[in-house]
Every structure is written in structure tokens, then in C-alpha cells.
């Protein structure tokens, strides 16, 4: 039987969900990470707790589709609704195991830009950090989810909105950042980890049908790859059913999200 078709977004959600361990406290955010949190809770991580920067803390997924974290269904049945300083305090206090962020531009050490792309005065203004920089600085580890294109994967980002591993090695410790930094990057082409010494991005797996060379072609520096690059697992029919339950119209996973 042919495997069930899935979208790149659905595959990324399944990959992101696998980054969540049971019992972890997760700074969730919107879009694909929100769906990943819902999927993880419904499968292997039923005791995961989700924090949102608006002040919502949930230990159960919302029961309806969400466009924003402040939509009514994300509040109904929450564990805690409070001010931002409380959830950010938990983050800065080292109580958050994992955070998710997205980016427009990334470099070989996992630094992210969501502020300004291009030469000063002639570039593109992006919305900015939101809570992204806080999650990148303060989570015990974080995972980045983004589209993989050569113009986005650059040797050095134009603006460091959310610090990754800086210029590599022990940069974060030197700078005084408490969080562990990016642990993985999940893109439309593959999954990446960071070298334990140099902290450079390393290709760990490619998605089904994607060649390592195709990933290199879309990456703006000589990309390191694991000795054995694996294949990212396809989302299972169960995973797809759960994701589609939380995103019935495919707004985030099959549309523009």
C-alpha cells in the first residue's frame, strides 16, 4: 500500500513533536510548534506542559483550531492564565526545558534573524523578535523550524535577533547566555543538529526524497553532514490524523503557514 501523502508542514510537525520528551516544560509559540506540542501530548509526551508568552500555561492541548495563542480555546481549560512576566520568569529561571522558534534567515551557528534582511536602507524589514530572542537566550535548549532556501541559509545573518551559538564553540558561555542554545533545526528539507565542539550546524537527516546534495545546494556555506545521514521518518497515519484534527483546514500545515 502506498504511504499516505503528507505535506512538508505535516512532516515538520511530526519531526518537531519528536523533540519533545515526556514531562518536559515547553515554550510553545505559534504555528507549527503549537501543532507539534499538541501531537507530542497526544502520543509520546502526555505529561508535557506548554507555556505561551501571553501568559497561558496548559497541560492539555486546546480542543479547537487556533490561529493565535490568545484565541479563546487556548484559554478555556488552561492550567494558568497570568501576566507575561510569570512565564518569562520561568524561562529565565531555567524552568523551561525546550523552546521553539522560527526564523527568516539562519547561519552556520544557528543564529537567527527575524528583524532586517539585506543591506541597511535597502533591505526588507521583518516583524522583529517577539518572544523569539528570549526563548533563544533563556531556554535550556531550543529548536528552530523554518523553510530551507539558499537565501535564508547564509554564512552570516544580517542581524542577530535570536542568538544561537554565536561564532561557535563556547561563545554562549563567554557571552553569559544561560540557555543551552539551539539543539536542532527542522527545515523543509531535513533535520540538523549541532557539533558538540564547534557548535556548527550538521545535517542529521534528509526528508524522504531529498538528496544530501539538494540540501547543500540550498545552503550558503559548505554544509557539514553526519557520517551517516539518515532519512527523516515519514509521519505515520496516526500522527497525520492527530495533526489534521488540530489543523482541519490545513491552514498551518498545508496552506501558507
Amino acid at each position, binding site marked *: 500500500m502506498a504511504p499516505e501523502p503528507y505535506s512538508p508542514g505535516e512532516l515538520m510537525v511530526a519531526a518537531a513533536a519528536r523533540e519533545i520528551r515526556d514531562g518536559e516544560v515547553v515554550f510553545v509559540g505559534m504555528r507549527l510548534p503549537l501543532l507539534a506540542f499538541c501531537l507530542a501530548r497526544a502520543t509520546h509526551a502526555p505529561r508535557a506542559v506548554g507555556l505561551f508568552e501571553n501568559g497561558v500555561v496548559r497541560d492539555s492541548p486546546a480542543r479547537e483550531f487556533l490561529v493565535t495563542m490568545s484565541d479563546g480555546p487556548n484559554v478555556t481549560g488552561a492550567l494558568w492564565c497570568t501576566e*507575561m512576566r510569570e512565564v518569562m520568569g520561568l524561562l529565565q529561571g531555567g524552568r523551561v526545558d525546550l523552546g521553539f522558534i522560527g526564523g527568516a534567515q539562519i547561519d552556520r551557528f544557528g543564529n537567527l534573524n527575524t528583524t532586517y534582511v539585506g543591506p541597511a536602507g535597502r533591505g526588507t524589514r521583518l516583524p*522583529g523578535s517577539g518572544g523569539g530572542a528570549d526563548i533563544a537566550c533563556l531556554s535550556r535548549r531550543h529548536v528552530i523550524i523554518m523553510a530551507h532556501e539558499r537565501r535564508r541559509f547564509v554564512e552570516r545573518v544580517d542581524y542577530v535577533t535570536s542568538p544561537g551559538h554565536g561564532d561557535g564553540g563556547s561563545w554562549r558561555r563567554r557571552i553569559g547566555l544561560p540557555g543551552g542554545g539551539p539543539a536542532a533545526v527542522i527545515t523543509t528539507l531535513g533535520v540538523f543538529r549541532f557539533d558538540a565542539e564547534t557548535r556548527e550546524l550538521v545535517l542529521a537527516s534528509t526528508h524522504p526524497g531529498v538528496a544530501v546534495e539538494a540540501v547543500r545546494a540550498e545552503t550558503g556555506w559548505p554544509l557539514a553532514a553526519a557520517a551517516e545521514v539518515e532519512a527523516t521518518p515519514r509521519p505515520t497515519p496516526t500522527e497525520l490524523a492527530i495533526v489534521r484534527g488540530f489543523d482541519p483546514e490545513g491552514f498551518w500545515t498545508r496552506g501558507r503557514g
Partner: protein
Amino acid sequence: MSKVFSLPEAIRRYVPDGASVCLGTALECLIPFAAAHEVIRQGRRDLTLIGPISDVCFDQLIAAGCVRRVVAAWVGNVQYGTGYGFRRAVEAGVPRPLEVEDHSNLTIALGLEAAGLGVPYLPTRSLLGSDILARSPRLRAAPCPFTGEPLVLVPALVPDVAILHVQRADPDGTGQAWGPTGVTAAAGKASRAVIVVCEELVEPAVVRDDPNRTLVPGFRVDAVVHLPWGAHPSPVQGQYNRDHAIYAEYHRRTASAEGARAWLDEWVRDVPDHAGYLAKLGPARLAGLRPRASRLAAPVDYGS
């Protein structure tokens, strides 16, 4: 003197040209869109906007030419990312140039908390190594005087006025909100003046029966505006859900400066007031946004 004002009167009194205005304090919910639209209708100029994430509210004020400077963590359309009004102002100075002071959500919160606590700054470990810090005119890196650890000092942010949307308030302005509140309580403490916009104007006894629910006490509030649906299209827990279609239409129609002007004319400038806006939306659309079921909390006993 009564603090209860009409929306136009509250904006006229407390949001002058050149004011720094904090709004959108609960992030994607409880956004005082009606107040922002009134600011646009009154043609306010040279405002400084302060807030974490404003959804399209800041984008509308910027596109309308009301804003000189924005102090924020994120400006755009939460549903679609890009805010075209913000982009045009920064990239092309259209309809007028915009200064941007970039923050993260936490540094906006800390700036307001510092002002609320009456201290010149609060420290954080966030933003170390970022260009938000490196290029900021106000944030400063400094070692901890006790341990020598690197810290970022966030100076107090003191808005001239905060516009806070809440579910209910009494005529003295004591405001109560539920659901996530972002930096609402902090903004209420930090700002020189406070306008509370409420869905329900209740008797004084109602807020006193549940004092833990209070986000801003009446003695900090200058104006109370009773304005049901005043946060539409953003959601208000227990009152109405988010009207996603408005954000979609705004995104679609404002990609060009002409489109943005037409949208602002149609939905803001050519609408006489909030009642006119609600009439334009129509009762059926509004009814469709009401919660399908209420979910009442168990009462708590404040008896003594």
C-alpha cells in the same frame, strides 16, 4: 467628576499629538482596536507606540500616518506575518518615516515593570549577544555589581498613556480582566495616564466582590469608556472570539499604499464612530463570534 467618558472624548483628553501610547498589552487578545481607530479618525500625529506584539493594531496606526516612533518586540499580522504598513514606513518612509526601537517581549515587559516599581531599570540575561542589544539606543550591557555576571539593563519605560481593554470595570476605573493578560497590569502601573475600555460597566460592588481579579485599581485610572465589542476583531474571553476574516482581508488589501488607504477609509475614516463600525459588521456576523457555550468558574468565598 465622573471618569466615564465617550471614546472620542477620552482620546481627545488623554491622547494628544506627540504622546507615547501603550496598547495591545495582552498580546493577541483584548486589543483596544476601537480606541486605535478613534485615534486615526481624530488624525493624531507623532505618536510613539509602546507594546510587545500588537497584531495589526500598530500596523493600522502606522499606515494611517499617526506614528513617529514604535517601541515594540514585534510589529506585523500574527496570522500572516508581514505587516505591510510597518514595512512601507520603515523601508520607504510611506506615509511617513518611522523610527523603530527594537525589543524582545521580555524587555518590553521589564521596562514597564521597572516604571511600575519606580526603579530606573531592571536587569535580564536575555538579549546578551544579540543585535537587538548591540543596536539599541536604550538597552545597556553591564556586569552584575554582586557577581560580575554579564547582564542587560532595561531602562524604565514610562508611557504617557496606556489604553487597556478589560472585560469589566466599575465607574471609578477599577478594571478586571481574565484570560492571559501579557503586560496589562505592568502597563497600568507604569503609565502617567490610564484609559480603561470595558465590555461591561459594572456596579462598584461587583469588582469588590472579586478583588483578586483586578488588574488596575481605580485610583490609577483617568478615564473609563464603556464600549462593548471595543476589542473587535481581537478576542475577549467569555465575550467574543477572534474574527480571523478581518485580519485576512486587511492583509490582502493593504499590500499597496493605495490599498491601505482604501481599507482605512472604508473601515475607519468613513465610519463615524464605533456604533457605525458595528453596524457595518452587522448583527449576524457579531452573533457568530459569540462563544458557543459559557464556561463559568466556581465561585470563591471571600467571607471573613
